[in-house]
């Protein structure tokens, strides 16, 4: 029996979940070794677009199944209600992908996300935009060295500054060449604590992301839906 054959024979005795958990643990440890720049990543599997998390500093995929991404408004105090994170990378060279912002903004109540109508989050790139009030999105062509950073803005209604809070934005990715991705989520923190932001991200992973990723996250506490980048300031 060849080495490959032995290897495959051995791992055939392991459950997929155990192996996935081990790998997730390994990736999770790596992700928490230092404050990490975590962006999104769009790829395809089985003809469907998928979301992943991507460390664009080291150019590595951190979690190929990530569907929850954290970010902070006001990381740069010059832009208190805006962010350019999370960015998105992709390996789908030559494809035009549309990021769709799904209508409906939610805010963190302390124990769950609830519908919130007093603010809107807008995502813009290259002059096109979508927002959580009416939906819409923007398209981009994936080229060499692709590293997209949309501009995200949160706006209060009637010109009033938005209240501090943790906000949940739903998106998907579509393309003429692939079927539309499952929904993925951005969890933005505006002025709340790191602990609350982490709790909201954990909730989203456990309650929005279907199993097995969500199940593993609940059982093992592994960061399959990547935690957000550390606060910048």
């Amino acid at each position, binding site marked *: 029996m060849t080495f490959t054959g032995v290897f*495959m024979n051995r*791992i*055939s005795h*392991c*459950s*997929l979940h155990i*192996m*996935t958990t081990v*790998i997730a643990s390994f990736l999770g440890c790596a992700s928490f070794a*230092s*404050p990490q*720049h975590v962006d999104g990543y769009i*790829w395809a*599997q089985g003809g469907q677009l998928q979301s*992943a998390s*991507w460390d*664009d*500093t*080291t*150019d*590595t*995929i951190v979690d*190929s199944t990530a569907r929850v991404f954290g970010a902070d408004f006001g*990381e*740069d*105090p*010059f*832009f208190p209600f*805006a*962010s*350019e994170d999370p*960015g998105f*990378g992709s*390996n789908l060279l030559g494809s*035009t992908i549309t990021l769709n912002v799904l209508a409906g903004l939610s805010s963190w109540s302390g124990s769950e996300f609830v519908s919130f109508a007093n603010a809107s989050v807008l995502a813009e*790139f*290259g*002059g*096109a935009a979508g927002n959580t009030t009416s939906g819409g999105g923007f*398209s*981009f*062509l994936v*080229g*060499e*060295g*692709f*590293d*997209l*950073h949309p*501009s995200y*803005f949160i706006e209060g209604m009637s010109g009033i500054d938005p209240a501090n809070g943790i906000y949940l934005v739903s998106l998907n990715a579509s393309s003429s060449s692939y079927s539309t991705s499952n929904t993925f989520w951005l969890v933005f923190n505006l002025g709340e604590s790191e602990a609350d932001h982490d709790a909201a991200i954990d909730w989203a992973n456990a309650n929005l992301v279907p199993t097995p990723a969500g199940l593993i996250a609940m059982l093992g506490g592994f960061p399959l839906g990547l935690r957000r980048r*550390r*606060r*910048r*300031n």
Partner: protein
Amino acid sequence: MNKSTTNFLSFIVLLGAFTSNIFGQHVGDIGVDTNAAGRLTTHIVADGALGEPRRVFSARFGDTGVANFTANPGFDAFPSAFHPSFRIGFNMRSPLLVWNGNGFSQTDSGGPTLGERVKMSFLTANVTTAAVPVAGFSLAVQPDGGWHRHFSFSILPASGFATPDAGIYLLELELWPTDPSLSTSESFWIVMNYASNTIDHELAQIWVEDNLAANPCPTDFDHDRIVGGSDLATILSNWGGSGTGDIDSNGLVDGVDLATLLSAWGVCQ
């Protein structure tokens, strides 16, 4: 082989595919660092690392599918390059210039402003090239000490026109730090292709490398190949300040710089 094994191997193969595909994600970006004297420097980014110092970079409007727009090149200072309590800013050092086949000239006048212009924006901040140098704005260093930023570049048509002329455009920038222990970079250039051909784009980059980045005439601030009255005016207008005119990079436009300019007076050699 059972399904679990197959799935696991697929996962491993997928990780491998990612690794090979993303290895060059930052190629073409502007690497940012400091030299031994504490001056900001720009570099080529290759294979995810800072390469040799470089002052000429390229961009192509439309590379992400929006005709008059690009978010490239980005800027990459890797973690620990700067202290996170500071910011890095930029200035536009010259009007937008356009390739004429033998060099760069000013864009055609289309009204009270010059012709085509480039707007650089980031979130709610933006500035646009003009007939004079334009002060930019700063962005925070990230908590890990890195500075990975993508500005949005938009090319604007001349006043009264619906679209910009196709051409190769030249944007001259400098980077400045808020950290007082560091100093402003030398000029660097982004050679930007708007709906023109690749050959002209490459020729223009070579010209900039040979004629501007090589810096044969550091007192020719307006790049007209002559050290003359306009360059003297630049020194005088920036007297006592920093940036353009600070030929010896001591952080001050002063008598030493003036003497250097006067000694080089005339056609650039």
